């Protein structure tokens, strides 16, 4: 769910170049780790997982302006290594059709890859002690919260953290302006410093974004949990990669 749709030219090179370097380093490492025999069996599955992620992203959620990606579910099914490679393929294809710039592929792969890796290991840990459905929901919530925080930090570092984070600074600044004791001072300040007013408006916008993200996380976690429950009933072998330590 938390990948950046920003076009090229928005993120500064100081963010996307290290993003690419770390992403390629991980990809080469993972590609080397996959054994030759396993490659034959697993590559078609990794490809299908990538296609599934692209399809999940195209499922509309009605009035909620976010889309599913079900990366945690894909991580549970494919494992962290193959899942990460599939995420890279997904982000490249998305960039090729204009859903996010080419320069953000590395950062996006790391963000979605973090969901896959965290989700897989949290699910593996929890499913040994709790039910699979609840483990999947919790793994999804934690993984998405971490990746969403990372995403906000990245966007914040490009636009300025005060603009990107919904709950820092703006309300206090505005409150201070409104409580100004001098007569007419409030009007004068607001009139002469439109920047403050704009920032206040952006605070509102980011709060709305935070609410949308939370609803998105809850929906994605619910759907992941329901699908995992369905697998546990119908094809428990699909969950073997994550449940067999």
């Amino acid at each position, binding site marked *: 769910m938390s990948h950046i*749709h*920003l*076009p*090229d*030219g*928005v993120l500064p*090179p100081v963010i996307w170049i290290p993003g690419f370097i770390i992403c390629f380093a991980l*990809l*080469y490492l993972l*590609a080397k780790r*996959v054994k*030759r025999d396993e*490659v*034959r*069996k697993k*590559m*078609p*599955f*990794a*490809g*299908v997982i*990538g*296609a*599934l992620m*692209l*399809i*999940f992203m*195209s*499922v509309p959620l*009605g009035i909620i302006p976010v889309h599913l990606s*079900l990366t945690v*579910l894909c991580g549970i*099914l494919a494992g962290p290594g193959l899942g990460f*490679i599939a995420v*890279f*393929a*997904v982000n490249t*294809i998305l960039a*090729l*059709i*204009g*859903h996010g*710039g*080419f*320069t953000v592929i590395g950062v996006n792969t790391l963000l979605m890859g973090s969901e896959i890796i965290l989700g897989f290991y949290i699910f593996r840990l929890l499913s040994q002690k709790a039910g699979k459905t609840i483990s999947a929901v919790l793994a999804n919530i934690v993984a998405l919260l971490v990746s969403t925080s990372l995403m906000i930090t990245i966007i914040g570092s490009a*636009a300025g953290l005060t*603009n*990107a984070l919904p709950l820092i600074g703006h309300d206090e600044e505005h409150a201070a302006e409104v409580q100004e004791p001098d007569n007419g001072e409030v009007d004068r300040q607001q009139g002469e410093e439109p920047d403050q007013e*704009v920032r206040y408006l*952006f605070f509102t916008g980011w709060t709305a974004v935070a609410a949308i993200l939370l609803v998105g996380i809850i*929906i994605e976690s*619910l*759907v992941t949990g*329901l*699908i995992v429950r*369905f*697998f546990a009933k*119908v*094809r428990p072998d*699909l969950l073997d990669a994550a449940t067999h330590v």
Partner: protein
Amino acid sequence: MHIAAVDQMANNGNSLMHRLSPVTKVCMTFLLLSALIFSDSIPKAVFLLVLASALILASRANIREVLHLAAYPLIFSVLFALILLGHSWKGGLMVILKALGAAANMLLLITTTPYTDIFGVFSYVLPGIIIDVFIFTYRSLFILLDKLEDMVKSIRLRGGLHPLKLLFNLRNIAGALGVMTIHAFDLSERMYRIYSLRGYSGKIPITREWQHLRLPDFLLLLVSIAVLTGVLI
């Protein structure tokens, strides 16, 4: 997601841009993209946007489809530009121009070059197994998209989606996606068996019939290098 429409334009188009080598087009895209990223003035960004748009027009792409695709980066860049507008209008405008220019470059590439050829060029720099994942993803995407369309249609026909019943919808969508995942898993096993029969040993061989560059290829590359140099100076 417009992948089918883009695929159709790339494979069935017949213009000079379509006939150029994929290597040339990928290199040109990266050069112009770099020029955009490093451009520091509005006139330069406008020039790069106009250049990419002119090349798209010359490639006789489906303009309606291209505009539709360009709307995504436009919307996201406008959101980001609004944040920057608090500091300066020039910064906001640059964000929009750069985003549109980059999207135009990318659209020029994908509407004139089939995905398989683009993956072929990527295979020069990426490990083989990653290229295989690209190819398998691309191959299974269309099969699964058809399945999803049929599934959503049948859920709708049977009253499985209701605009006001969110939980009811979620349960049904989750069931459909679960069935789809199981189908995808079976598809991957079938693909594995088919590829094994054809001698797949962990690397899909890629033929590159387009390796030899011709005069138009060199000209386009020279223009792209000149543009990048002009922007950097």
